[in-house]
């Protein structure tokens, strides 16, 4: 896919406007999900538009020195960081996210959905550097070496951040009184 992306970029640089539209169609889903997971759910449409606008403006200067996806994710990461700087997020207090009391077995799926919501909030509350690593490793399935190229940070540092991020998420679950037997059993 990445070779196709590079071909598409070449065609676009040669003046084929359709190639740009094809790139947008191909990447709007992954990029919007990525932005959403970085904690920009409310403004993801605008940010996604911004990412592809930057891609359009930077396109003529694109050189095939690395993977197109890494380049595009870096643009998206910068857009997300800029947005975070513009509007400092006010994280939802954990006290507001109490688990519902389980009344019967049929409520299990409801509780699971609540837990999912709690986890998303917990993820959104993570510091930016930790959240980025979780999103890239978990959702984008990037290796730490790819992440190191994208974030320009040593892979060992990113592994430590990832472990720390999972530890914090697990801590949130523990704070809420979750135990493995309740959902996995």
């Amino acid at each position, binding site marked *: 896919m990445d070779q196709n992306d590079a071909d598409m970029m070449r065609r676009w640089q040669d003046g084929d406007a359709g190639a740009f539209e094809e790139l947008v169609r191909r990447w709007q889903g992954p990029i919007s999900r990525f932005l959403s997971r970085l904690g920009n759910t409310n403004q993801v449409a605008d940010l996604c538009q911004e990412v592809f606008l930057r891609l359009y*403006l930077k396109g003529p200067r694109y050189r095939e020195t690395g993977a197109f996806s890494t380049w595009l994710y870096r643009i998206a990461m910068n857009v997300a960081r800029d947005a975070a700087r513009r509007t400092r997020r006010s994280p939802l207090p954990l006290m507001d996210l109490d688990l519902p009391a389980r009344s019967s077995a049929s409520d299990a799926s409801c509780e699971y959905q609540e837990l999912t919501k709690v986890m*998303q909030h917990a993820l959104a509350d993570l510091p930016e550097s930790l959240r980025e690593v979780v999103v890239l490793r978990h959702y984008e399935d990037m290796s730490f070496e790819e992440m190191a190229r994208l974030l320009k940070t040593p892979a060992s540092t990113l592994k430590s951040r990832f472990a720390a991020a999972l530890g914090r998420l697990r801590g949130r679950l523990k704070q809420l009184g979750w135990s493995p037997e309740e959902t996995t059993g």
Partner: protein
Amino acid sequence: MNCEHTRELLPAWIYGDLAPETKALVDNHLATCPGCREEQAALAEVRRLLDEPPLPKVQVDVARIFESASRLRQGHMRRWRRAAVALVGMAAALLLILCLKLEVRWQGQQVVVRWGMPSPEPDRARVEERPVVPVPSPEVTAADMKLVKDLLHALAESVEERNGRFQQNLAQLERQLNQMGEQAGSRWKATESYVSALHTAQVEARSKGE
């Protein structure tokens, strides 16, 4: 492998990032440690819960991108034009200032660069009025000495000649003065005799009348 080391490796174990030999070591520890197993289960649950995010569906408006890009580029062009005009203006002003205040000239076999107001010109009239003092030559030759002697002689002759003329004039004046004195004496005698005769006549007339 102890619990601490195992728990450090659990995130990588959950995501399958461990090398086979390390994974085997972790597996062995998990088989014998209920606490680490619980931690492993918790992390696996975290992974599972992360898998269900509500994702918005987004459609990028490509036409709006083209429009925005065009607007941005026009804005950039405008800013560049303004910056260029400002730069040219500043350069012109700087050049003007430099030309007015910077003086570069060749003087006395060296380049003189001077910044600031020009130095005041010397007053030519005053310079012209100033007497020219001849600088004596440090060496006096015999010819010079002869010339000076001749000049002194000529000057002395001139003085003597002038003195002679003065003496002649003085003698002539003395003679004239003597002549005038003689004339005055003779006139005085005549007047005296006339007055005496007149007095005698008056006395005689007075005696006749009595």
